[in-house]
C-alpha cells in the first residue's frame, strides 16, 4: 500500500481551492476571446472584454475572480492501492477547504442547516464525491460552484418516448427561464440516464471538461453541438443583455438507465467554470 500523508492532502486541497478561484483556466479565457468574434451586440462584446480583464486582475493579484467562491465540490479518485496516514481522508479534505478559504480570502458561503441558516464560518463541509479506482494515486479535483448558477439547475424524469427532442426542449427551456441569473455566458452540463440521484451527479461531473474539448462518442459530440447552437439562438447573450454568446459550451454525460426511464439533468455553470486537479 502506498501511503499518502494527511497533511499533504490538507495542503494540496487548500492550494487547489485558491488556485481554482483565482486562476481562471486558459480554456475559458480563450473562449471569451473567440466569443468576441461571434458576438454581434456591442454591449455583449464589452462584457466579454471586461471578463477577460477581470480574469487578468484575478490571476495577477491572486484575488478571486468572483466574490461567490462557492461550495467546494470535490471529486476524488482514490486508488485501491493507497492508504492515508495520520488521519482520515474526508477530514483532510475538509481541513484543506477550511485552510484554503481562510488563507485565500475566499468567501465562506455555507450554512450548517438549510432552515436555521447559521454560517459554518470556514466553508465546510465540502461536498465530496468518491470513486475507488485501480492504482496507487489519489486524484483530487476541486470545483467551487456558485449559488446563482446552481439555483438555475434542474432534474426532470423524462420517459423514453420524449426522445432527443424532449431532452433538447427541456435543456433549452431551462436556459431560457434562467435568463441573466446564472451570469451568462454559461456552460451547460447535461446528464442523461442513470436514475434520479445519478443524473444530477452526471450533469455536475460533465462540467469538469475543458471548453473546446470534444465528447469522445461522436454521437454525443454531435448532440452537444446541436444544443449549443440552439442555446445561442435564444438571444440571451452575455449577462442577458441580448446577443449571440449565451453559452460557451454544452457538455453531455450519459449513463445506462432503466427501460422505463430517461432522467435528464441540467446543471448550469457561470462563465467562471472553476476546477483544478492534483494527483498525489
Amino acid at each position, binding site marked *: 500500500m502506498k501511503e499518502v500523508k494527511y497533511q499533504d492532502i490538507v495542503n494540496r486541497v487548500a492550494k487547489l481551492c485558491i488556485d481554482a478561484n483565482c486562476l481562471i483556466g486558459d480554456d475559458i479565457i480563450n473562449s471569451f476571446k473567440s466569443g468576441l468574434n461571434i458576438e*454581434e*451586440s456591442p*454591449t455583449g462584446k*464589452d*462584457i466579454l472584454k*471586461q*471578463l477577460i*480583464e*477581470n480574469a487578468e*486582475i*484575478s490571476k495577477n*493579484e491572486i*484575488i*478571486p*475572480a*468572483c*466574490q*461567490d*467562491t462557492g461550495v467546494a465540490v470535490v471529486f476524488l479518485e482514490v486508488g485501491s492501492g493507497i492508504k492515508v496516514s495520520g488521519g482520515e481522508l474526508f477530514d483532510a479534505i475538509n481541513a484543506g477547504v477550511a485552510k484554503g478559504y481562510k488563507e485565500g*480570502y*475566499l*468567501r465562506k458561503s455555507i450554512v450548517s442547516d438549510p432552515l436555521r441558516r447559521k*454560517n459554518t464560518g470556514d466553508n465546510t463541509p465540502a461536498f465530496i464525491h468518491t470513486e475507488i479506482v485501480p492504482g496507487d494515486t489519489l486524484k483530487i479535483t476541486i470545483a467551487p460552484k456558485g449559488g*446563482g448558477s446552481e*439555483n438555475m439547475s434542474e432534474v426532470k424524469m423524462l420517459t423514453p418516448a420524449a426522445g432527443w427532442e424532449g431532452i433538447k426542449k427541456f435543456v433549452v427551456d431551462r436556459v431560457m427561464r434562467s*435568463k*441573466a*441569473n446564472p*451570469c451568462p455566458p454559461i456552460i451547460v452540463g447535461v446528464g442523461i440516464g442513470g436514475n434520479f440521484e445519478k443524473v444530477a451527479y452526471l450533469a455536475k461531473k460533465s462540467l469538469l471538461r475543458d471548453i473546446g474539448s470534444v465528447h469522445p462518442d461522436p454521437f454525443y459530440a454531435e448532440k452537444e453541438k446541436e444544443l449549443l447552437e440552439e442555446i445561442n*439562438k*435564444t*438571444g*440571451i*447573450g452575455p*449577462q*442577458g*443583455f*441580448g*446577443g*449571440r454568446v449565451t453559452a460557451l459550451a454544452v457538455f453531455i454525460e450519459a449513463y445506462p438507465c432503466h427501460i422505463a426511464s430517461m432522467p435528464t439533468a441540467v446543471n448550469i455553470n*457561470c*462563465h*467562471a467554470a472553476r476546477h483544478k486537479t492534483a494527483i498525489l
Partner: protein
Amino acid sequence: MKKITTPLTDAAVKDLKAGDSVLITGIIYTGRDSAHKRLIEALNAKQPLPVDLKGQIIYYVGPAPAKPGYPIGPAGPTTSERMDPYTPALLAYGMKGMIGKGNRTPEVIEALKKYTGVYFAAVGGAAALIAKRIKKCETVAYDDLGPEAVMKLTVEDFPVVVVNDCYGNDLYEEGMKKYRKT
C-alpha cells in the same frame, strides 16, 4: 457612456434609458436579503432607517473578504430577485436606484415608473474588476450580519448598464428579442 453622481435626482433618473452604459461616482450602499428584511421592518414600525436612503442607490452584493491593503474584496452583484418583495416600499420611501443582476418582478418595474427609479445591472462574475472601482468601504449598519451588513461604498466610475428605466423599458426583454433567431 453616461456618467452620473450620487445621490440621484428625478431629473438624473429620467435621463437614463434601458441599454445605457453608465459610470457611477459617489456613495452607494450595500444591502442583501437580511438587511432588506430589517430595513422594511424599520419602515413598517415607523422607525428611522440606520442610513438615509433618500436619493441613494443600493448595491446587492456580498463581497469576499478583503486581502490586506485592499479596501474591499471581490464584489460582483448577486441575483436581484430575492430583494423584489422589499423593493417597492424602499422606492416609495425615496430610494432611487439598485444595482444587481437578473430580472425583476412586474411590481418592481411598476414601482420604478411610479416613483422615478432605475435598476442597473453590474457584470456578474467581474468581481475583481468591479472591486477596483471601489475606493473606500465602511460598515454603517447591522454589523451583526457580517458579510450581509450595510456598507457605505465610495465608488469611482463604477460600471453598470441600465436594465429597467423609469419608462417601463426592460433591456433583458428587448435585448433578447433583438438577437433571437427562430
